[in-house]
């Protein structure tokens, strides 16, 4: 599909896209660091929300600010900020999640003064009435901060419109995931990964248009069957910045049918109530959605929902993708593994450093795992 070519171009070179976008539309671009960013509000302000992915290569500037035991994701994001390559941004939004992102925000504010900087200090608890109220209050404040920073007014009508667009995008993303879980051969994991990434970069209206066409095509794709012996897997972790992984898994005889990634299902899961007051609707989605391990809801929420996910997709196993130095995920791993063990759901742990282990070696590890399923 030539649509994928367009998407792939954007994913490989998002900055060129952004520069062009700015030139053509005159709109501002707002960077953000995590899936708890209320993109709807940014969109309603007439700006383009742009997720910062960072880089794995040529890190120099970030090392002056972050010690060696900081996760590569944040190091990479800071490097991009310091390098000037993100100068096209009007500003950056930092939702509060883990200790590392928290300090990234400070370091950014002190060292990259050219752009506006907004902290969105979300509650850590997502399961109490007072936390819900605080979340709504803080979204209200964010809206004001953003209006101020962008010199724009965010009307309720614009918010309602944004919510509609995002609901449509999320519904379609859910649909693609569902279709693909049934007929994985219709689209490769790598292409699916590009779609998600593009969803966080591209002009959302144009993205929605293309996405609608892609889904229509996929709906009509002939019903295929999963190749005999292919094992269905669920991927869990933070963000996946290694699209190669999908190819390697597929070559090893597996296929990822669902995920619990911040750059995966957690990004699009949950539809907003279009009848509720907009900010309440946005808050409610965060409260209902599967949580990031840096947040607190219950004691076994993540384990429970992972097991449910595996059951629903009739998956054969789980792959934990843990980024080195990522505390929230590392703390959850032992208990979730124990829960999976109790349910006889096999899992494997993939410790991720900046670079993936050499392709062949990784494929062998996946093969070994897939063979036991």
């Amino acid at each position, binding site marked *: 599909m030539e649509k994928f070519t367009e998407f792939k171009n954007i994913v490989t070179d998002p900055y060129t896209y952004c520069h062009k976008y700015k030139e053509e539309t005159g709109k501002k671009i707002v960077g953000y660091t995590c899936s708890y960013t209320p993109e709807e509000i940014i969109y309603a302000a007439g700006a383009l929300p742009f997720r910062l992915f960072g880089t794995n290569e040529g890190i120099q500037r970030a090392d002056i600010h*972050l010690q*060696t035991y900081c996760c590569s994701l944040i190091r990479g994001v800071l490097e991009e900020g310091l390098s000037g390559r993100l100068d096209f941004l009007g500003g950056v939004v930092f939702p509060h999640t883990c200790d590392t992102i928290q300090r990234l925000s400070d370091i950014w504010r002190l060292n990259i003064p050219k752009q506006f900087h907004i902290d969105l200090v979300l509650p850590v608890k997502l399961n109490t009435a*007072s936390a819900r109220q605080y979340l709504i209050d803080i979204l209200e*404040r964010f809206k004001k901060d953003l209006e101020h920073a962008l010199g724009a007014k965010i009307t309720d009508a614009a918010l309602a419109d944004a919510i509609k667009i995002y609901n449509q995008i999320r519904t379609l993303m859910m649909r693609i995931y569902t279709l693909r879980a049934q007929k994985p051969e219709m689209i490769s994991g790598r292409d699916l990964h590009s779609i998600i990434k593009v969803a966080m970069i591209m002009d959302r209206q144009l993205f929605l248009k293309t996405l609608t066409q892609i889904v229509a095509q996929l709906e009509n794709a002939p019903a295929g069957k999963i190749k005999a012996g292919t094992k269905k897997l669920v991927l869990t972790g933070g963000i996946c910045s290694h699209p190669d992984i999908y190819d390697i898994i597929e070559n090893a005889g597996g296929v990822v049918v669902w995920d619990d990634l911040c750059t995966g299902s957690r990004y699009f899961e949950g539809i907003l109530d279009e009848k509720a007051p907009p900010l309440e609707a946005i808050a409610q989605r965060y409260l209902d959605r599967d949580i990031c391990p840096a947040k607190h809801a219950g004691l076994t929420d993540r384990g429970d929902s992972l097991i449910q996910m595996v059951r629903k997709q009739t998956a054969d196993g789980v792959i934990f993708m843990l980024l080195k130095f990522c505390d929230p995920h590392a703390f959850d791993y032992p208990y979730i593994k124990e829960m999976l063990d109790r349910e006889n759901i096999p899992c494997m742990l993939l410790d991720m450093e900046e670079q993936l282990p050499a392709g062949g070696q990784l494929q062998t590890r996946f093969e070994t795992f897939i063979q036991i399923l």
Partner: protein
Amino acid sequence: MKKQISEILKVIGIFLFGKFKKFTMRFKKSNTMKDIMMVYYSEAKSARLTGKKVAWITSGGPVEPLIAMDVIPVYPENHGAMIGASKMGTGLCETAENMGYSSDLCSYARADIACSTINGGPIGGLPKPDMLVCCNNICGTVLKWYEVQARYFNVPLFVLDTPFCHTGYSEETARYVRAQINEYISFIERACGRKFDYERVKKVGQLSFQGQQLWQKVLDTAAHKPAPLSAFDAFYHLALIVTLRGTPEVIDYYTALIAKMKDRIARGISAVPNEKYRLLWDNLPIWHRTRWLYDKFASHNACLVADTYTSAWCGTMKYIDENNFIDSMAEAYTRIYLNIGVDEMAKMVIAMIDKYDVDGFVLHSNRSCKPYSFGQLDIQRIVEKERGIPCLMIEADMVDERSFSESQISTRIDAFMEIIKERKK
């Protein structure tokens, strides 16, 4: 049981006296640190027998409501410090790693999680909790750590969520935290099965405030040249303001300690003989090397006269209303040293540099503690720019000895001290 308690007392005694006696002054009176801590831990350990409840609480957590309800607060972080000081950290950390916890996680958390399952460590493990109170004003680690323990012990967990104050304290935050104080009180009422004692908490709040004032005064004595106490002494005496904040013991102890310090000043006794150079320490102590570091710096006639860590327990007094503790504690607990932006931390560091008139700044880049350590490089640069004093960053871990390279750190301290000496000539 009696035998068990006396065993525990012995171990605590060995810990408290064995590790620290060389560089801490001893008291003739009976209210020594050793006695107080022995009574404290043995009371906590025998809570099952005396029918008292035990709450595990984070070091920066609001303990006063617990004390007002006769709940015994126990501090896994203080326990972690004891584990580190008795050099049992590495073993326990390894146990946690075998349980699946990454070696990059906070070593207090690793050691404690491991210790709970084997009752190991210097005092044979902590008494089992009836409830857990986690305040995330110090880090996100404690949230995950307490979740682990809540699953393990199957006891109720209260999370006091204190939103991070990057650039200030917002109205929204004030409302949210204040609302949670009420939720916290209800939580304690449920756990204790009786109504909260609002009268008593006033008294406890006052004692807590006075304790903090006195602790600040203890630390203030180091502004004198030569300093009668060093940061290493402060690391030791800190135990009380952490664990017994809100009780009269703290008042008596620190009052006596201040008198002692004044006496030392009067008699010209200093923490480091021949103090010539004064240094400021940043981050947690390296518990397993306090003695070594003290000696190392003392060999250069250098004294670590102050530190950012122990002063965190009296750093937010300006937000406390002594006569309205419950209302004001929301802000005081939210705006503590680790819950503020890097630039505000740098300001406080600079204020300490001036107050204690130090010649250099030593930063412990602590692999365990990301919120304390990330941003340090910026603080270092700000200090260099604003005050122009030499700074030294050493990478280590407060409990896990495997991250400590003695020869390398020794060489770097020597080189750093050479620069300081050169400048002071």
